[in-house]
């Protein structure tokens, strides 16, 4: 296969000036891990010096066991055709992250979504507080400690009849009194 020359070169180009760690995931995928403060410098450097001009995606992962939010910036170079993931972890209590919409305007949309879904504050963000949700005053719904099933049960009317909707096969067996065929047993949820 390929020997990942351009990926290695990119990794060195990004990690050496900032003294950060990173790795080549596979062909055309490189990731670097950096501090909260370094992110915007890395992104600006990659955009202006290395030609990674396209912000493909920004997303957030809730690592509830570590008590951290991980933010991932995916940027792409149309010349090299390599995706570069810039990853950082921030605290879960009072999460504040640097606003990068001076580097890419379209980051504003992602940041507003993250503010609403995870409660991360981006100082200086343009836009009204509501993004997709309306009149939401609970915990931000994409956090892992938000129990969406419980919330739905409390808030919305639950029609009776969903309780026995566990496994269709076993419900049918209970009703009819026959046995589950062997070929169907291996797909059963209760092992």
């Amino acid at each position: 296969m390929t020997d990942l020359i351009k990926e290695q070169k990119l990794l060195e180009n990004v990690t050496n000036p900032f003294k950060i760690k990173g790795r080549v995931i596979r062909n055309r995928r490189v990731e670097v891990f950096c501090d909260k403060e370094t992110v915007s410098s890395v992104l600006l450097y990659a955009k202006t010096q290395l030609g990674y001009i396209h912000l493909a995606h920004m997303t957030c992962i809730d690592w509830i066991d570590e008590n951290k939010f991980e933010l991932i910036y995916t940027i792409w170079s149309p010349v090299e055709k390599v995706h570069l993931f810039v990853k950082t972890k921030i605290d879960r209590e009072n999460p504040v992250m640097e606003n990068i919409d001076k580097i890419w305007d379209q980051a504003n949309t992602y940041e507003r979504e993250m503010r609403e879904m995870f409660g991360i504050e981006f100082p200086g963000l343009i836009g009204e507080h509501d993004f997709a949700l309306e009149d939401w005053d609970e915990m931000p719904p994409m956090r892992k400690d938000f129990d969406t099933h419980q919330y739905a049960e409390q808030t919305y009317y639950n029609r009776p009849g969903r309780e026995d909707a566990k496994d269709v096969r076993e419900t049918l067996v209970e009703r009819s009194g026959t046995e589950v065929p062997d070929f169907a047993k291996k797909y059963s949820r209760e092992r």
Partner: protein
Amino acid sequence: MINDKDSQKIVDYIQNFSRKHSLFVMAYGTGCGAIEIPATMTSRYDAERFGIRGAATPRQADVLLITGYLATKTLKRVIRVYEQMQEPKYVIGFGSCTINGGMYYDSYNTINALEQYIPVDVYINGCMPRPESVISGFIKLQELIQQGKADNGKRYRENLEWYRANQKKIIKNWKMPDYNW
């Protein structure tokens, strides 16, 4: 001399007959079910042979189709559309999501039972219902209209407080005009 009761029966029959054969469906798709409507309307299934066709505005429409999951944000718009519609008006709940939440039963942002918020005449189950089921649901509605049992607007008017209380439980910031005809 014509008996008044019998003549009223004839008038009702003619009225219901003409109503059931000109169902103007509000062109408002919520959720993913709206994609079945073009298939139902176009030449293969041809819903217009039953008198079902689209209407552009709520005030011209008879039927409101709730096609699929209903987010709380959309519910606000649906209530507004529903209240602008003039009687006789009918509501069809379309797909599993309007009946018991369907695959979105544990979502924080979609309602689970439509008839808690606006009265519903006919439910069509399935995820998605095929155009055959959609047409069969419309025929069921036509039967109800012919028997004079489709009294959606009347039910809403009579139980308005109950519906309003349920709606306001979901929509916290209630800034809506009152349509009280």
